[in-house]
């Protein structure tokens, strides 16, 4: 075993002082989560929080899916009276809001919270208490909006909440306020996680993991975190201005008082377009990981894929106006956005070509994760190409705000994010639980999903071209849209059935699934170097990275680093580019304060919907709990 020992002047027990047999138990005791409810709520273990994040994300997917089922039932027949306009508007708003804010963005971050620290070979995520806090804020924000919906005060202006419809004049009551505050909840949580991911990747990589040895999965999540940091503030500004307009009559968007309704659209889409890539980049992370493992070779064109990810990140901020081609902007300006919107096809294309080249040269092993990735190619490429059509200003003036667009972005988002995500769950389920999902059920799930999806969404291209606008709660029989809509509804039924198969598979396999072992797929990245599920401290020894595909390169024994403390939480900080060992840094212990802070923040956010005084009274309480959270524990650390 090649071993690098880090010398430390302190007198604490180091892993070099402990017998190998005792080490796992002692580390687990140091890093473990205490038993009982308080222990569970205080945990700062990224795997436990990541697992909660993932389950919560799927819970919201389920709720958003139920909303979609209601939409499809209402539209199955012309002049249907099953759901009236009031409820229908709430339902499609909840569907879009949930899928984008409570599932799309958080689920990508949730997977990163679980997997990135393992993949870079560290013991916990950076800022673990912030991580706990961000999860609770996300959970409470999501529950708030769904409870509001259950009480018939759900938002009803669409997930985009255009003013003046969402303004005080045309949406009296509290519905739009709940929506704006829900956005604030998700911003806080998403920004916090983005910071954790960036710092984890920059500073906590295992020694030897130079920039060009970072797994593509981690690169994608890293670029994604930057997108979140730059995109979210725009919507934060927007949602705050909206709620100020509504609660304090600020008139940011009121044209009668010198405000501008288009300002909202600019702010919203300056966030909203990168948002699509924020949802898609985790998809590319999953695809890169799965393709390498099941093609049995490294992904072809590592540098090209990394540069494409970064290019996608930059370009995604230059396209937002293609959501506004019909608002009467100057034509030359609009053309710039046509060019930039089409240009993003180049980096996306390069990634697709690199993955296909990987499959070409490799020897594919057709297990469920790979099947879902193949489904991703089939669907996402079609969605990307219809996106090229939407980038054209003239074509957009016809298909904008019709079911053609609905078809397009479901091809992009379900194809580009959900199919890879499901593949990812099949792929990492053994790591999460120690057990395999059933392969036979996985195949059923895949084929039902692929067929159901296409039957549900392909006809929407046609109904859109034949004049069906989005967000209509019904349509007259004479329009000739009924057959297409009925087909869509039947397809949606199959698609939903595929998820029931998935749910069943998860339930039976988490108890009775085949035992997985450390590395059931013979994959190459570091999360497979530890047990399934991993121990609280992730690795008995921090790995030393000698290759981009470490587990394929070092098949005999994994080189490790020793010299970290055993009886206190300590992580190894490395240099940003070369990943040379730099510092040993303590990692925060579990504490209940992030939960209490989240509760206080939730009370302030919800209270402010009803009175601005909630902010005034809440701020001192919030300061108090944050002081408690950051109260220094010992002086020894500061020497």
């Amino acid at each position, binding site marked *: 075993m090649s071993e690098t020992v880090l010398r430390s002047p302190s007198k604490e027990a180091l892993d070099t002082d402990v017998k190998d047999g005792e080490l796992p138990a002692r580390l687990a005791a140091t890093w473990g989560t205490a038993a009982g409810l308080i222990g569970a709520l205080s945990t700062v273990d990224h795997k436990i929080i990541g697992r909660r994040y993932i389950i919560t994300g799927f819970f919201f997917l389920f709720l958003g899916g139920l909303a979609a089922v209601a939409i499809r039932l209402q539209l199955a027949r012309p002049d249907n009276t099953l759901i009236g306009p009031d409820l229908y508007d709430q339902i499609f708003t909840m569907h879009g809001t949930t899928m984008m804010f409570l599932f799309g963005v958080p689920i990508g971050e949730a997977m990163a919270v679980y997997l990135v620290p393992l993949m870079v070979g560290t013991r916990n995520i950076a800022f673990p208490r912030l991580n706990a806090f961000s999860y609770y804020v996300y959970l409470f924000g999501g529950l708030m909006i769904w409870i509001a919906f259950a009480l018939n005060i759900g938002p009803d202006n669409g997930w985009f909440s255009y003013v003046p*419809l969402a303004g005080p004049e045309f949406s009296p009551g509290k519905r739009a306020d709940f929506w704006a505050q829900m956005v604030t909840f998700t911003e806080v949580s998403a920004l916090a996680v983005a910071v954790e991911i960036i710092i984890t990747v920059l500073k906590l990589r295992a020694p030897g993991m130079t920039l060009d040895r970072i797994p593509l999965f981690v690169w994608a999540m890293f670029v994604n975190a930057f997108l979140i940091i730059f995109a979210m503030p725009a919507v934060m500004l927007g949602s705050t201005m909206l709620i100020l307009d509504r609660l304090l009559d600020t008139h940011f968007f009121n044209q009668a008082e010198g405000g501008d309704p288009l300002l909202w659209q600019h702010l919203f889409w300056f966030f909203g377009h990168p948002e699509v890539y924020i949802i898609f980049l985790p998809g590319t992370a999953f695809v890169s990981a799965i393709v390498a493992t099941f093609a049995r070779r490294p992904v072809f064109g590592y540098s090209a894929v990394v540069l494409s990810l970064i290019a996608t990140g930059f370009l995604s901020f230059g396209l937002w106006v293609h959501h506004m081609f019909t608002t009467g902007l100057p034509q030359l300006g609009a053309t710039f956005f046509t060019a930039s919107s089409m240009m993003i096809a180049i980096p996306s294309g390069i990634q697709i070509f690199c993955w296909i080249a990987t*499959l070409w040269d490799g020897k594919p092993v057709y297990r469920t994760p790979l099947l879902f990735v193949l489904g991703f190619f089939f669907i996402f490429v079609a969605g990307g190409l219809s996106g090229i059509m939407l980038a054209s200003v003239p074509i957009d003036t016809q298909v904008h705000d019709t079911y053609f667009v609905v078809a397009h972005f479901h091809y992009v988002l379900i194809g580009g994010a959900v199919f890879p995500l499901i593949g990812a769950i099949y792929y990492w389920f053994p790591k999460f639980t120690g057990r395999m999902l059933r392969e036979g059920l996985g195949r059923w799930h895949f084929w039902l999903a692929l067929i159901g999806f296409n039957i549900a969404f392909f006809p929407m291209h046609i109904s859109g*071209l034949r004049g069906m606008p989005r967000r209509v709660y019904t349509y007259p029989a004479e329009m000739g849209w009924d057959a297409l809509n009925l087909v869509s509804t039947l397809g949606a039924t199959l698609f939903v059935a595929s998820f029931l198969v998935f749910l069943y598979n998860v339930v039976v396999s988490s108890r009775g699934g085949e035992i997985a072992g450390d590395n059931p797929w013979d994959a190459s990245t570091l999360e497979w170097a530890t047990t399934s599920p991993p121990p609280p401290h992730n690795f008995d020894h921090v790995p030393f990275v000698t290759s981009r595909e470490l587990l394929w390169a070092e098949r005999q024994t994994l080189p490790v680093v020793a010299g970290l403390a055993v009886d206190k939480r300590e992580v190894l900080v490395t240099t940003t580019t070369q990943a040379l060992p730099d510092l040993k840094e303590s990692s925060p212990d579990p504490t209940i304060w992030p939960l209490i802070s989240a509760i206080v923040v939730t009370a302030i956010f919800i209270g402010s919907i009803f009175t601005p005084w909630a902010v005034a009274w809440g701020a001192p309480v919030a300061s108090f709990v944050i002081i408690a959270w950051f109260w220094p524990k010992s002086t020894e650390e500061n020497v």
Partner: protein
Amino acid sequence: MLDRRSVLLLLPLILAGCAGWQSVLDPEGPRADLLANLFWVFTAIVAAVWLMTMAVLVLALLRRRAARADPLVLEPEAERSMARAVGAAAALTAAIVVALTLVSYGAQRALFDSHEAELTLLVKGHQWWWEVTYEDAQPSRSFTTANEIHVPVGEPVLLKLRSSDVIHSFWVPSLAGKMDLIPGRENLLIIEATREGVYRGQCAEFCGWQHAHMAMTVVAHSAEDFERWRESQISAAKPPDNPVRKRGMEIFLTRPCVMCHQIRGTPAAGRVAPDLTHFGSRLHLAAGTLANNRGNLAAWIIDPQGIKPGAHMPLVKLGAEEIEPLVSYLEGLR
């Protein structure tokens, strides 16, 4: 190849079921023609790209090769040829993107080149109906109608789009692309029909509860028919010609109806709801929600909220014997 198959399955639906009066695929004007052609050019190219990508993917999966003993042992020659292939594909992508951008830009210039037309209409969006004013240099020849636009065939008509409340979007797909109506702004759109006919359109920007029921019809006439129609619309409403209708007019003028609706030639001068001066000549009522006939009109007057929940027309309590004369009166406003 599910996409291909579903196209084939759905093709008959596209061709047979097509009412064609609100469809991008049935252009009936030069602008819509241009847009439909552009659409098909793009569709052909992106479909070809999709098929090529899928073909290469299928080949990649079916290709025979031996399993690698060690995933890290790669052949330099194969890597080089793949690099060339990926590079070529990326270059081709870039070329297609540039070509499509130029094609799109050309079409865009042709579409938006001029905003000049003989006939200018002011279209104002309301929750959930369309107010249409035919402007004229002589104020006395200017008039207002609702939810129905008449145009002469073969002549570009300029629409000045405004909104009185929230954002709406004007869209008659058989004639032109859509354009938003935004409070505080004025957007311009030119529509033109090449053939006589009735074309349906509807609001394309979500505008609240009755977004689904905010339709309008465009009726394209020959130049002479259009002039005849215009002259009739300029005139005030004819006085009722029989006692039942006279009674209907009395009811209309003594009930809350007058607070919102205008009937030129009578004291009714409300401006917040559709102008009803020539209501009887229109094809639809309630912004394209119902065909304009006696039964539908009576149903609408008795219970507007049942037909269009949330609409701003309130329920006006009328006696059973009052409906018949009121309907007759409105029907007679031709």
